[in-house]
């Protein structure tokens, strides 16, 4: 019976590896072949990360001279000190900028998307479908195609090279509106809205005290999507910003990397910096993984 029902495999307590076939259909051979393949791919996926961790503990000299996939003398603390001291300590602002652009941008963007998606799902008004189509059109506009005209427009108002020139365009998430509409339609029952209206609750109050709570799992998903999109956005800060104090960490590390030929010590610093910037994100991802799955399922299954 366990063979038929246990398809999720989410049992960390299970004993490791293919020592114990679970049913008559699974030959030891097919378990071994499957596991072998999964292991090979896992090595492919994790090896660069392992290499990054190993490299960040090395001195610049050992980075070049020692074998890349194993540790040599431990220099991680020196590297970290150098990383945060470089260019009057510009690295920490980079990290904070990234958090601010992505964190605050995604938070605001999620709230705006949730409100708009909720309105599109729960109210009937003229032009609703037209508005929704326009939003869908917005989803299709590639962010890279937007970066150049946005730069020209911001330049007209003398607003390039500011925090806002990167932040404001990031709060717009048509994809978030699309997801919100699906989620609001599924998770906020009309009967409940009716009851709230009969009880005399205003539309805004109903939304903020009740609907928003019902939609909260969906909003975590939208927040994460949006967070990654902003965190990964490279072209927009690249065209907008000249002042390196405003850079997100990705752009900062990119500029270090492109100066390596002039200053080789930047090599180890960009590696250590990459590791430091990636660790919190990867951890957040792993912790919030189940929300991702929920969101991905909603995006992929409905059709």
């Amino acid at each position, binding site marked *: 019976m366990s063979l*038929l029902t246990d*398809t999720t495999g*989410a049992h960390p307590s299970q004993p*490791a590896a293919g020592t114990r076939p*679970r049913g008559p259909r*699974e030959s030891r051979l097919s378990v071994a072949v499957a596991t072998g*393949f*999964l292991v090979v*791919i896992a090595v*492919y*996926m*994790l090896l*660069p990360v392992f290499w*990054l961790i190993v*490299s960040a503990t090395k001195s610049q000299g050992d*980075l070049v001279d020692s074998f*890349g996939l194993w540790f040599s003398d431990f220099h991680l603390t020196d590297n970290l000190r150098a990383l945060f001291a470089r260019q009057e300590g510009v690295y920490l602002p980079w990290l904070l900028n990234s958090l601010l652009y992505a964190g605050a941008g995604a938070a605001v963007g999620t709230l*705006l*998307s949730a*409100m*708009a998606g909720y309105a*599109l799902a729960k109210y009937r008004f003229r032009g*609703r479908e037209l508005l929704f189509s326009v939003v869908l059109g*917005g*989803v*299709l506009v*590639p*962010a*890279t*195609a*937007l970066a*150049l*005209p946005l730069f020209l*427009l911001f330049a007209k108002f003398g607003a390039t090279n500011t925090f806002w020139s990167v932040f*404001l365009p990031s709060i*717009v998430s048509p*994809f978030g509106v699309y997801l919100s509409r699906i989620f609001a339609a599924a998770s906020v029952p009309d009967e409940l809205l009716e009851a709230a209206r009969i009880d005399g609750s205003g539309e805004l109050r109903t939304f903020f005290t009740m609907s928003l709570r019902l939609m909260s799992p969906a909003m975590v998903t939208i927040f994460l*999507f949006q967070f990654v*999109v902003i965190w*990964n*956005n*490279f*072209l927009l800060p690249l065209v907008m910003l000249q002042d390196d104090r405003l850079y997100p960490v*990705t752009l900062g*590390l*990119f500029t270090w*990397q*492109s100066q*390596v030929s002039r200053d080789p010590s930047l090599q180890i610093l*960009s590696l250590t910096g990459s590791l430091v910037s*990636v660790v919190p994100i*990867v951890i957040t*991802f*792993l912790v919030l993984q189940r929300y991702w*799955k929920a969101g991905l*399922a909603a*995006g*992929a*299954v*409905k059709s």
Partner: protein
Amino acid sequence: MTADHTAATAVTAVPAAPQATTAPRPAPPPPRRRNPAPLLFLLPFFVPFVLFTLVPVGYAFYQSLLRTERTGGTFGRKTTVFAGFGQYAEVLGDPEFLGSAGRVLLFGLVQIPVMLLLALVLALLLDSTVARLKRFFRIAYFVPYGIPGVIAALMWAFLYDPRLSPIVELLDRAGAQPDFLGSSMILWSIGNIVTWTYTGYNMLIIYAALQAVPADIYEAARMDGASEAKIAWRIKVPILRPALILTGVFSIIGTLQLFTEPQVLRSISTSVTSTYTPNLAAYSLASSNNYHEAAAMSVTLALATFVLSFGFLKLTGRKAES
């Protein structure tokens, strides 16, 4: 630049969803007259949406119709004149741009099938009864997606660099002498970075779709004596069709927008030119102050993205019917 779009473009593949959400509505809310609530909810989104999406798109199109001309020689006065679709003729006749477009098309034709096939196989394996340690593998495959494109490209740049790379070192010792940064391989080196980053993400979409299938379908098939492989191929893959189309459209859009990886690799490889991909070409043009042609290039690229994603949807949609 792939990441920005993968998440942001799911809609194309699921055009049925909006109708699906509105159709089963047994008790619609009472149609109030002039209820201001929807407007209150919509404005906070639509004001920035108009300012930072619709206006820029319109502005790019407007800019693309203009041309800067110098009257009186190279150092003469600059004037902006209306050029109609002249800039587009320029873009479409530019061998560098066409070369970059051909390059990303070739890239997509090879990289997308490889990546999606790998993602499909992994998802099917993790959903099957033969795999062990499923939770660990699922997490391991998703880790690269958590790493920003710039950082992923930086990491792989080191792993390709013959002076630093342990991988090149090992391959050298084994007798192979790969030149990952050379002009013949660099495109596939970029392809490897993209595959590494997005396979796990695509796998998770496919896997999530698999989880939504009621288990009794498989049970019935097993009762009828179907093998696991047969169940995967005959039942699961057809069910996964919408998820595969979705990931396919994601990938097409991401490929056409390729920017981050080649831009990062440019700093260590001379094989990546300033017009290596269409997006790089547009960026280079804008950097050299030729905004009008850069705008025409961006609009052309956006249109090509539309045409190819819809073409793909039509193609896969028609096959489903026949």
